[in-house]
Each structure stands twice: as structure tokens, then as C-alpha cells.
């Protein structure tokens, strides 16, 4: 299962980077969304996938095979909430940028670079 998930994470990352390198600002934001999902999924995978075990330790029993680690879920939940807020801002930003600059082409947005 871990191997499959690892490939899913890798695919997500490569799609995210591909989308971020396109010229359209909408695709840029889609890339950012995929990137944050990929990072969340990565945390989920590296901290170990446990099926059918509650995050509870029975007293006097060696917990290692029977217990799920609740901390990664808590981390991911926090990260999802944060990325939701940040990406909501990003969506508003690209809309506003489109209104002001009147293009969705990143190559045209070079006024502040040089």
C-alpha cells in the first residue's frame, strides 16, 4: 500500500510542478492546490499507514503493532485548514490581478521584475 501511495504522491508533485510552470495564472493556482495536497499526503504516507487499529493503547500491552499514530492526522488536518485559507486568498488574488492587469498570462506580468 505504501508503494502505491508513494507513486500517487510522486504523480501529484509532478503534476503540481508542471501546472505551476505553465503561463496561465489559473493553472498556477491549480498547481499550488495540488502541491499542498501532495505534501499532506506525503506526511500521511511517511508516518506509516495503519489499518483497523484505533489510536488507543491498551494498558500493559506492547502497542507497536496494534495502534495508529494520531499525530500525523492532526498535523495534516491543521495543514489542510491552513492551506485552505491561503489558497482562498490566492484565488481572490488571481481574480483581482486579472481585473487589474487584464491578462492571465504570466509572461505579461513582468513590470516589477527588471
Amino acid at each position, binding site marked *: 500500500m505504501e508503494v502505491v501511495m508513494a507513486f500517487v504522491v510522486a504523480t501529484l508533485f509532478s503534476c503540481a510542478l508542471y501546472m*505551476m510552470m505553465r503561463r496561465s*495564472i489559473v493553472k*498556477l493556482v491549480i498547481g*499550488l492546490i495540488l*502541491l*499542498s495536497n*501532495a*505534501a*499532506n499526503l*506525503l*506526511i500521511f504516507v*511517511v*508516518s*506509516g499507514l495503519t489499518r483497523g487499529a484505533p489510536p488507543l493503547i491498551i494498558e500493559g500491552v506492547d502497542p507497536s503493532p496494534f495502534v495508529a499514530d494520531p*499525530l*500525523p492526522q492532526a*498535523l495534516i488536518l*491543521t*495543514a489542510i485548514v*491552513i492551506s485552505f*485559507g*491561503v489558497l482562498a*486568498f*490566492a484565488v481572490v*488574488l*488571481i481574480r*483581482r*490581478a486579472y481585473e*487589474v*492587469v487584464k491578462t492571465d498570462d*504570466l509572461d505579461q*506580468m*513582468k*513590470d*516589477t*521584475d527588471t
Partner: protein
Amino acid sequence: MNVLAIPLLIPLFAGALSLALWRSTRWQRVIAVLATASLLVSSIVLLQAVLQDGYVVLHTAQWAAPFGITLVADLLAAIMVVLTGIIAFVIAIYSLAATPAGHEKFGYYPLLHLLLAGVVGSFITGDLFNLFVWFEVMLLASFALLTLGGERAQMEGAIKYVTLNLFSSAIFLMAVGLLYGMVGTLNMADLAQKIAQVEDQGMITVVAMLFLISFGIKAAAFPLFFWLPASYHTPQVAVSALFAGLLTKVGVYALFRVFTLIFVHDVAYTHTILLWIAALTMLTGVLGAAAQFEFRRILSFHIVSQIGYMLLGLALFTPLAIIGGVFYIMHHILVKTALFLVSGISYRLLGSYELRDLGGLYRKKPLLAILFLIPALSLAGIPPLSGFFAKFIVLRAGIEAEAYVVTGIALLVGLLTMYSMIKIWAEVFWKATPEHTHEQKPLTDAVVDRGHWPLYVPIMILGCGTLLIGFYGQPIFVLAEQAAAQLLNPQGYIDAVLGVQP
């Protein structure tokens, strides 16, 4: 209540209060000044407590160390919080006169407090994931501050700023996840202790590099620094100055923290990479500045080059070099903020940031010229100002560590910094006022900025700060020395957080 929580609670509380008083900008202004002043006072109290005890630790909600979120202040963190307090206070005063009414109506002050809460939280947290959360608090506030006003340049700058910073956050999150998967803890002290027990040390180096990339983006280090000069000159000037003073230094602080406490297993590899990053950051920043002819863009590129000096202090990793790095951070925060504030006043007088549209300020405003000259010469490293001692310590550490090439680059960069400062001085202050200024506001004797003491007082405070560090540097040096000693002896930090173990 613990002295550690107060500097964090003040901006959070003030932010909530300003939000509640959304309609009354007058009260928001009062709160801004009072809250930042009390932030400054409480941060000095914190510094005194840290000087007395060595470390101040707070286990939130009484959860003992590796399980709960721990707040820790060692000397470096306390110094950074004091600097935050100083900058916050002067920016709040400056904002009274400089913030356009439209920005005040749309939540400038609440965002300011939120940003400060994020910055202080990043400095005093002792938990890596919590650091991520504070980073995001800080970033979200900075996104909104950067785009207040909604002009075209702001939008274009913001897209780059937001994208790069979100990218960096994703890498940070990945690194945190990988580290947790290997070590099983995210408390920094606990990590420092357990990281040596991990079998696959090569993987630890990979994670260290991920942290380096992530914090490197936030600190605007080479090669991913270009979001900074593309965005820092776009918002109104008080925001620019605040960002220039504080935000990149949070990234530098995070690098100092993780590369002295956690990732010291393979110093020869990681810190050599840091060394070259530092050298290239210095060089590209200063060369970028040499090509610019816009007041704030020149200063923005100089932030990049100065970040290189701080990283150089960390990368050499000798006691003297770390002292130099810490000293440099203290010097740079004061000086860079002052320079941005000066650029704001010159914009007010002449209506432009372009050097070719500016001129004649030395004749019209001799006080402003002096207020520019002090931080500018300090930035370039002219004795006896603070920048000279900061550069001197770092360079001496470089020579002692026999890193001659990098030291040579640092010296060259100092010279080019001088070139940029002279360029601004000659164009803005010495040259006659151009006939046709860029926008409609020509400088005449009638332009008297009477009643604008809030613009000048902050720069004077910061100027006095750099003079003080220059002329009375011994206590500051001792402070930096103690901070460096703590950084190089992580056992003290570990014991303070986890309790002394048998």
C-alpha cells in the same frame, strides 16, 4: 503569567481588538501605538529574564516537553523579539502619518498586529510544526498587507511573492513530515537529541537540504531570492519597511535555529553548501542593486546581499562567526528599516521613487540627508557605525577559518554596497531637483511637512540605534557572544526544554 507568553499575546489581543473596532480608525491607531509600545516593553522584560536564567521555557497547557507545544526563548530568540518590538513600535508611529486613509479603513492595523504575532511566534516556538503554523500566520498577514491598495505593480509582485512562499511552505511541510516519519518527534530539543540515533544519516541530510531550500526561499537566499526585489518595492512604504526589517530575518533565524540545534551531524557537507549560498547571495544581491535606478529596488536588492553576510556567519560555524551573524542581524534590521523609511519621506516630498526624478533634497532638507547618511554609511560598513563592526566580526571570522575566497567576496560586496549608497546620495540628495518631476508634485519651499514628526522620529530612533551599536558596542557584542555560546552548545537548550535527564 509567564513572561514568554506576553509578547505573543499582546499582538494577538491587539489584532482582535482592532478588528472589533473596525469602523473607528482613530481607536485602531491608538491601539497600534500602545500595543507595539507594550510589545517592546514586554520583550525587554523577556530579554532580562533570559539574561538572568539562560532560557525561559513555557509548556503550553502543562503538557510536558516532547508531547505538548513548547515555547522556548534562548538569548537569540529574545534578541529577535526585542528587535521585533523596536521595529513594530517605529512602524506604528510612522504609519500614523504615512498610511493612506483607504488602507486604514480596510484593516491595515489588524493585519499589522497579526503579522507581528506571526513573527514573534516564529521566534519563540520550540516545535517545528508550530513554527510552520506561525510562518503561515505571518505569511497570510503579509499577503494581505502587500496587496492593500490593489495597484497593478502590487498584483504582479504579489503573485510572485505568494507563489514562491507557498512553494516554500509546501517544502517545509514535506520536510517536517519526513522528519517525523524518521524520528517520531517534532519538538526541536527532542529532535536534536534523537537525530543522531537515526540509522539512515544520508536521509537526514536530504531532509536538512529540504529545510535549507524552504528557509532559504523565505530568507531570500540565492538562488530563489527573486520574489523579494519583485515585490518589496510595490506596497506603501511603511509595509515595505516592515517587511524589509523583519520578514526575511525570520527565515534567517529559522536557518540559525535548525542548523545549530538539529542538523549538526554533517557540518562539513551542509555548512559548506551554506557557505557558497551565502557567497552567491551576497554577490548577486549587490550586482542586482548596482543595475537598479529605483530607490526601493536598490534597497530591496541590498536586503538580499546583506542576508548573505548573516548566512556567512552561520556557515563558517565558528564561535566568532556565529557572533558576527547575530550581530549582523541586529545591525541590519535597524539600518534597513531606517533606509526604507527615508525613501518614503523622499517619495512624499517629490512624488517618485525613480532616482532620475529625485534630487535637491540636501539643500531643501538637510536633516533628512543626515538621517539617510547615517544608516547608508552604516550599511556600507564605514567606521564607527554599527555596520563596520558587524562586517568586521564576520570578515575576521572568515579569515580565521581560512575561507579566503568567500571573505574576499564579502569585502568586494562591501565596496559595491558603498557604490550603491553613493549612487542614491548623489542622485537624491546632491543633484539639483529635476525640472519635470515624474508626477506632479515638484519640490518647492512651500512643501513643508509640518506636523509630520511621526515620519522623522522613527528614523531618528533607528539612527540612534545604529550609532549606539557603533559607539557603545561592547555590551551588544557581549550579548551576541552569549547568544552564540548558547547556539553552539545545544545541550543547554535540550536540558532546559526536556529537563535535565539522569
